[in-house]
């Protein structure tokens, strides 16, 4: 049976979308053709950039529910259930393909109806006819609609009938009729019918429902929900209220105006009228209709030069109309809100257009507004931009600095200092964090606007320049903190001051964690650390907590500079004071302190153990309600007993622990990162972000005594190919996950003369010992499962990276100089002695005697679980 359909001529420019997780995923832009290959009619889309790449190839069958929506959209469901959409550039192109699809389907249908005349169920459904739209027929209509909704075939047939017969429009007058007659039962029936029709989940029906002359009738019926017989909603009143639509600058295009209206109605349907009854398919149909509408609206706006000129002209200082300015800010705010849902390229285009018309001036206008609500709105727009592309935003900011204009950051910083509305202040702090953060996690690079922004970035971001700007901004930002030096008593802080300090310390903590090298300058030159330490004494406990968090972060960095910062003054005394003040009460502040000391103990951070025990031994001895402090003293004593050489290896390099560190909280950008090596890399290489990110993810050595050390040269950044990770995981899973990273840096700097003897059995022993030691350290907190591996199996991709990190670590260890191993081996017995702690661990080593039934039992289980974890990973 030959196809007698002519394929259309020419190629139509089109975007291909696929519905994934309720989101339209952009498969790319290309050229669409309809073809008949052999006997099979197909739709082809070839990629615009790579002509050989086929974005879409689909066979047209008679059953596929192709639908044309609006002028430029074709939507259908693939045989495998995937929802697809073609969005054409030109309405004409869309029409051509649509005609082709229609012709093919008509043809196929005529063939089949000839072939399977016996297929009676198809026929019976195709012949669904509803009785005339009259009040008297409502019971019958309701019954037929309900019955037809039960099966897919029935739904299809019913949808077709409803659309062909324009049945909904005919039902609408019945609503007022029934109301006039005060016939509640009819109104309930109408409501049920409308619900069923909407839940048929057909695009065309839903588009019909929100049309101008129909919507009020439909929601009118839906006001009488039989499930709430005593209630009547007032949807019509809400939707009929024209004043809700505000026009700052009139949009002239009637099609767009209509789209704006129907989008608003769709949202109302989704959020209010149908919120309780929506099923997932209808929910996603509504969402995608809204999405495509919004895309068109936004595209129209941003391509409409005169409109944008008028819009931004509203902000001309000579314009006295304040109301209009406020409305314009809100208009832009709404655009930015919609943009969040758009695909990254269209979002980028929109923002770029706004920015070129002067969006920053608008933001500056809004954030200085007298009304806090407007300030919030202004910052929301800014945050939308930052969320979209922080790198671009920083580029613009630095450009302003370069051109000797006042950068946005200065404005924001000044505002932060004086802002009294706490919500706004909060947002300001967040925005400043991102804007000044010198190293931003790279997201999907395709999500960026395009070549323009890369140019902005690479041209301007010379490191010295960035550093200089960062230092200057920090100076400005942390000025109030610095001025704390002149205050002796901190008992009289005002509420505003407390809030400001807590934001400032929070930002500082964020900077230190994100980028310790850059932050070093300002902390040093402004001597900020003592100021934060001052805050440990304020009466406001939450501020104390914030200050404590800062020092906890410094500790976790395991960086000599910051270590010195904490040990060369009385910081620990202040922290111990808090312990004394709060113990033995069980409260948040107390727990936070305990966690800090537990961390030092668990990670065995030698400088701190030495410092704390030497200076505050007596204080520690008096804290006996938990064993943390006694263990610290014990560790110290053991250190002293066995000399410095052993200590060096024992206590400085348990770096495999670093990735286990508990993530610091509440930050805008989550994720703890070990910065040093990446940072070295950042200093030493060009702007290849992906590469930087990569090394960050993989290398987790958290040492790096200083930036001047030779470490950069020896750092094992590059040598661990992926494949090896696999091997390690397979053959020595325990070693791979447990091995501390013995950094070559430390080796070479600290003990250059260690004897280079090595023999394999010892190495093995050493490995086991370490593994067990690691267990023990975990067991300080826990019953000692080898948690990391199970977790990696557990929570997805970013943990996978960490597994690689650990594997890499172990490799490094294998390759590390024999000296390390040797020394560590010799230290083993001491360590075991040290480890006689609170919790027993399953013993591999001969010296361990603290084993108990229970823990070994749990150990086995956890081991088992461990392997599951690996499989899962």
């Amino acid at each position, binding site marked *: 049976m030959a196809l007698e359909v002519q394929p259309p001529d020419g190629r139509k420019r089109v975007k291909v979308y696929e519905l994934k997780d309720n989101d339209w995923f952009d498969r790319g832009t290309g050229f669409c053709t309809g073809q008949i290959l052999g006997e099979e009619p197909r739709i082809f889309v070839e990629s615009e950039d790579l002509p050989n790449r086929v974005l879409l190839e689909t066979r047209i069958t008679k059953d596929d529910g192709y639908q044309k929506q609006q002028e430029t959209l074709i939507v259908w469901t693939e045989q495998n259930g995937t929802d697809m959409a073609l969005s054409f550039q030109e309405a004409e192109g869309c029409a051509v393909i649509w005609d082709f699809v229609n012709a093919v389907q008509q043809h196929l249908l005529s063939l089949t109806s000839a072939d399977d005349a016996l297929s009676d169920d198809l026929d019976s459904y195709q012949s669904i006819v509803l009785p005339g739209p009259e009040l008297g027929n409502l019971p019958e209509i309701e019954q037929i609609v309900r019955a037809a909704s039960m099966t897919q075939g029935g739904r299809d047939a019913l949808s077709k009938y409803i659309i062909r017969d324009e049945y909904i429009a005919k039902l609408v007058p019945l609503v007022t009729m029934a109301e006039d007659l005060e016939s509640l039962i009819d109104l309930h029936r109408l409501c049920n019918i409308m619900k069923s029709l909407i839940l048929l989940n057909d695009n065309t029906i839903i588009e019909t429902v929100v049309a101008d002359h129909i919507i009020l009738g439909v929601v009118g019926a839906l006001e009488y929900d039989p499930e709430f017989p005593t209630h009547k909603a007032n949807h019509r009143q809400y939707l009929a209220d024209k004043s809700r639509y505000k026009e700052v600058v009139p949009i002239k295009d009637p099609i767009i105006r209509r789209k704006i209206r129907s989008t608003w109605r769709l949202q109302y349907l989704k959020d209010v009228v149908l919120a309780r009854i929506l099923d997932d398919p209808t929910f996603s149909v509504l969402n995608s209709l809204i999405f495509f509408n919004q895309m068109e609206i936004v595209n129209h706006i941003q391509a409409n030069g005169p409109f944008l000129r008028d819009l931004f002209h509203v902000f001309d200082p000579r314009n006295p109309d304040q109301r209009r300015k406020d409305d314009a800010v809100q208009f832009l705010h709404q655009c930015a809100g919609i943009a969040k849902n758009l695909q990254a390229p269209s979002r980028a285009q929109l923002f770029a257009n706004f920015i070129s018309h002067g969006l920053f001036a608008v933001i500056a206008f809004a954030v200085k507004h007298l009304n806090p*609500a407007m300030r919030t709105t202004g910052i929301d727009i800014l945050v939308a931009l930052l969320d979209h592309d922080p790198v671009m935003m920083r580029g613009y900011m630095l450009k302003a600095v370069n051109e000797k204009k006042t950068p946005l950051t200065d404005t924001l910083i000044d505002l932060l200092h004086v802002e009294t509305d706490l919500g706004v202040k909060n947002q300001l702090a967040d925005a400043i964090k991102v804007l000044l953060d010198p190293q931003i996690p790279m997201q999907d690079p395709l999500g960026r606007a395009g070549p323009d922004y890369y140019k902005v970035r690479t041209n301007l971001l010379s490191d010295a320049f960035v550093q200089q700007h960062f230092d200057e901004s920090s100076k400005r930002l942390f000025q109030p903190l610095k001025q704390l030096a002149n205050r002796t008593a901190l008992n009289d802080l005002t509420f505003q001051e407390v809030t400001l300090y807590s934001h400032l310390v929070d930002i500082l903590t964020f900077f230190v964690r994100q980028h310790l090298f850059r932050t070093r300058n300002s902390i040093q030159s402004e001597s900020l650390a003592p100021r934060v330490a001052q805050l440990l004494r304020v009466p406001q406990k939450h501020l104390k907590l914030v200050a404590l968090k800062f020092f906890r972060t410094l500790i976790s960095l395991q960086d000599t500079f910051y270590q010195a910062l904490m040990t060369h003054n009385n910081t620990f005394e202040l922290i111990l004071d808090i312990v004394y003040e709060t113990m033995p009460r069980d409260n948040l502040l107390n*727990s936070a302190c305990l966690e800090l000391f537990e961390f030092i103990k668990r990670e065995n951070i030698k400088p701190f153990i030495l410092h704390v025990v030497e200076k505050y031994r007596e204080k520690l001895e008096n804290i006996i309600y938990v064993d943390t402090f006694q263990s610290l003293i014990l560790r110290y004593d053991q250190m002293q007993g066995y000399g410095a050489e052993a200590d060096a290896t024992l206590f400085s390099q348990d770096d495999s622990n670093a990735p286990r560190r508990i993530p610091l909280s509440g930050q805008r950008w989550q994720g703890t990162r070990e910065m040093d090596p990446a940072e070295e890399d950042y200093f030493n290489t060009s702007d290849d972000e992906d590469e930087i990110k990569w090394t960050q993810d993989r290398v987790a050595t958290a040492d790096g005594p200083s930036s001047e050390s030779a470490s950069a040269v020896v750092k094992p950044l590059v040598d661990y190919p992926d494949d090896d990770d696999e091997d390690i995981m397979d053959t020595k899973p325990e070693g791979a996950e447990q091995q501390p990273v013995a950094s070559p840096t430390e080796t070479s700097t600290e003990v250059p003369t260690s004897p280079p003897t090595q023999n394999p059995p010892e190495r093995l022993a050493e490995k086991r010992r370490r593994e067990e030691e690691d267990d023990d350290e975990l067991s300080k907190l826990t019953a000692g499962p080898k948690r990391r591996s199970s977790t990696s199996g*557990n929570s997805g991709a970013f943990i996978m990276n960490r597994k690689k990190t650990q594997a890499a670590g172990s490799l490094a260890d294998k390759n590390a100089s024999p000296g390390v191993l040797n020394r560590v081996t010799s230290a083993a017995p001491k360590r075991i002695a040290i480890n006689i702690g609170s919790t027993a661990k399953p013993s591999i080593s001969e010296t361990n005697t603290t084993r108990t039934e229970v823990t070994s039992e749990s150990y086995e289980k956890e081991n088992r679980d461990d392997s599951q974890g690996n499989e899962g990973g």
Partner: protein
Amino acid sequence: MSDLDRAIEQLRACRLIPESQVRELCYKARELLIEEGNVVSVDAPVTICGDIHGQFHDLMELFRVGGDVPDTNYLFMGDFVDRGFYSLESFLLLLCLKVRYPDRITLIRGNHESRQITTVYGFYDECIRKYGSANVWRYCCEVFDYLALGAIVLGASSELEPSNTALPSMPIDDSELETEVLNSRGEVTMSTYRARQRSSSDASTDSRNISPPRDISAAPGQAAAPSRSGAPGTGASGDGNGSATTSRTGAVLCVHGGLSPLIDSVDKIRLIDRKQEVPHEGAMCDLLWSDPDEIEGWGLSPRGAGFLFGGDIVKQFNHLNGLSLVARAHQLVMEGYKEMFDGGIVTVWSAPNYCYRCGNVAAILELGEDSSGGGTVARSNGEYGRSNGIVTDNRVVSPGRRYRVFEAAAQDTRGMPAKKPVADYFL
């Protein structure tokens, strides 16, 4: 009437309070919560509640069934927000009550009390829609960071005071009322008894498969007369070890999710710095995310966070910590509550007809007070030697448990559930 009382009145009527008041409230709550330990000690009697999920009218129904604050001492195990349409009203009301009656209501953190989760599951959107900006969401999230991670209930009685004296029935020799299930009208629908004298380790099942852990010595529906031969707990010696110590009602640990492989004792929870966003892994994450499951040991959780843990884990944990029961929420159970592992753990779910469509009933769990004063484990939380306060060599007796089961609030009391539409629009 103080501002706070006014705010409570207003929220009870399901009307929101102004943003400035929310801010004020959140700051007050913060001051209060910062003083709470990671594991709060709560004395029986207490009523334990599971997930609420923004179902405000059902929360009102819960108070109707369980008694009002401050008459009843409540413990809510998290997940106040998301999913339902009234997360703000529900959470703010609970927070107001917390600030007003700090000793009569305890709130602990659920996995939905997190920035990341609330941006996905509705609370964030609700804040934007109802207040026009994310400020209120920020204030609430700040409070979330201060919420305790768990609670431990002390002093619960092993025997229930029979709630229904209307039904005449014979006192049942040698048994005490252990569990009782009541419907929302206060009628007993099921009771189980445990022997006073015999070893109390026999498990039994009932028709609803909720595994009440001990003997059913009486038919369901039959209630024991209030006659007791001695102080509760003193008569039983289920240990069989011949020791002179009486059996004791162990403490009850309440967490939102469950146990963690990183936490082998309740005291370890104390070493967490809880003021942070719920992490993706680690002890704090597990407490809020894990689920019990019919497995041995630990298993991967399909949720992508936390773990699955089996009956052996629960048994061991309870034994080591002198606990008789872990109460948790986090999972929808159609009957409102579900006991597992021979009564070692119970899931309590307090959101009826979850998401307005699941068709489940909800429950709250009442633990009575041990009036004899002598039968409880002396567990010195927060003081010197806290770890030694537990005697682990004796079997601890689980507390008497009264479940009140209730259904979704009647339609006419709640109005139509709907979200609030946006006020104005430009696009």
